[in-house]
């Protein structure tokens, strides 16, 4: 029964990982940018929320509603004024730029907020749970995060397949030069994609900060989880990201059930196993892209 519980917790935790992964996947899919600052942008959003919460005496959820559009604006500006320029100088430049950005964000957070760990209050939701029988309890907050992750991923999927801008985004991902020839402003599309990606990172970062503590250096670990999720699930597939998140989450909680100290390590091993034996990920989109 303990293991059933661990698997359920793992699946729900996978929702949070998928939220981290989907923005990373979107940016890589559309612009071929591996955003190494993804985790730090998420942590930055958590700090913004913590500032708003103490300054305005509002709940974390209300603060999130303020920070989400701000994060989208940050993403838009980031693409327009920094990443666009780097894209012109080859494939390596954006990688280095996002790496630099990651360090800048970490140092800035350390300077302003010190290295002390913080946490965001999840309100009464944070401690509530549903009991099924005597052994299984489902934390309401984690379930909510899972539901939000599914809503975000299906929303993104719907946007990409049905919306005018979403279609243009897929066309630009296929062939940016030709997109220009059919009237698509690739730079505007890129800015929108990054805006969406940073907003999802902010959402994930906030949920992460609500369920555990965070500090200025928390970003890179979240980035690694996000990368693992994307690779396990399959590059370029949003539903793959959800599956990747669940695989990573379940591996971590089941291993944690055996010995808590193996939890994170087991997740990394699972990632390596997938990389070794199914490098295209669980859901492969290679056929569609070729």
């Amino acid at each position: 029964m303990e293991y059933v519980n661990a698997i359920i917790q793992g699946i729900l935790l996978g929702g949070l990982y998928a939220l981290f992964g989907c923005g990373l996947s979107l940016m890589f899919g559309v612009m071929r940018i591996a955003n190494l600052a993804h985790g730090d942008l998420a942590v930055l959003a958590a700090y913004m929320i913590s500032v708003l919460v103490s300054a305005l005496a509002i709940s974390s959820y209300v603060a999130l509603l303020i920070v989400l559009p701000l994060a989208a604006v940050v993403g838009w500006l980031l693409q327009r004024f920094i990443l666009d320029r780097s894209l012109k100088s080859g494939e390596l430049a954006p990688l280095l730029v996002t790496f630099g950005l990651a360090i800048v964000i970490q140092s800035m957070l350390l300077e302003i907020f010190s290295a002390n760990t913080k946490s965001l209050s999840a309100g009464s939701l944070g401690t509530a749970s549903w009991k099924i029988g005597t052994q299984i309890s489902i934390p309401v907050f984690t379930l909510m995060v899972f539901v939000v992750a599914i809503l975000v991923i299906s929303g993104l999927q719907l946007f990409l397949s049905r919306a005018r801008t979403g279609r243009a985004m897929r066309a630009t991902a296929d062939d940016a030069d030709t997109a220009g020839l059919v009237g698509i402003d690739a730079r505007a599309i890129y800015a929108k994609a990054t805006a969406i990606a940073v907003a999802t990172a902010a959402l994930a970062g906030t949920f992460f900060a609500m369920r555990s503590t965070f500090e200025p250096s928390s970003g890179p670990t979240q980035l690694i989880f996000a990368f693992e999720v994307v690779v396990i699930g399959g590059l370029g597939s949003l539903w793959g990201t959800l599956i990747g998140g669940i695989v990573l989450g379940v591996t971590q909680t089941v291993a944690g059930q055996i010995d808590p100290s193996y939890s994170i390590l087991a997740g990394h091993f699972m990632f390596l196993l997938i990389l070794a034996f199914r490098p295209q990920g669980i859901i492969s989109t290679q056929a569609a892209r070729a």
Partner: protein
Amino acid sequence: MTLLQIEDLNVRHGLLHAVRDVTLKIDAGETIALVGANGGGKSTLLRAIAGAGPPPDGRIFLDGDDVTSTEAYGRVKLGISLVPEGRRLFPSLTVEENLMVADDRREGPWNMATVLEAFPILAEVRGRKAGNLSGGEQQATAIGRGLMSNPRVLLLDEVSLGLAPKVVDMLYASLQQVIQTGTTIVLVEQELDRAMSTASRVVCMLEGLVVLEGESRSLARDQVTDAFFSLPSQSGAGR
């Protein structure tokens, strides 16, 4: 009325001087064929008009407005549309999506329904991914996509390349419908007979220079083939 005007256009690909001092005036409703041997600069000229490729020297006017510094997507909004060599469809999008993505909401006769009507072979493959089409279907999709923005000038690059003659016949039959709507067309075509029978005017390019230009009906086929292979210095247009 001059719709498209090209003045002293020069395009360089690194060391290669692909288009040299090209000056052309194209009237509204005209169909022009750019002919000439490979490497003559035809495709480069077409791409320069569409705003693709290296930035050219010289000036390009659409309906009197200087569009030289307008980016490719902006020129589509003004009414210049290129059907690129090699089709360049978006492979992960369906035929229908390839068309929809190019719908720029410009007024005009072309929309999903009329494009599918003009290219009947697309009707049955409209839901299929563009990466899984035959050459003819791909080319029809590419031309249809070029029409979706209701261009004033449609630039067609190597429509018949690599396609069976039957398929090319069908595509040109569809193109006749486009010509009938009054769309100005500039096409690059290797097949001289087809170029001369479709276009009202033929422009022959050799090594980046325009070496011969004239009404298709007043030009003899031999004159054009001579220009194909003549050296620029012999034609009098070289320098």
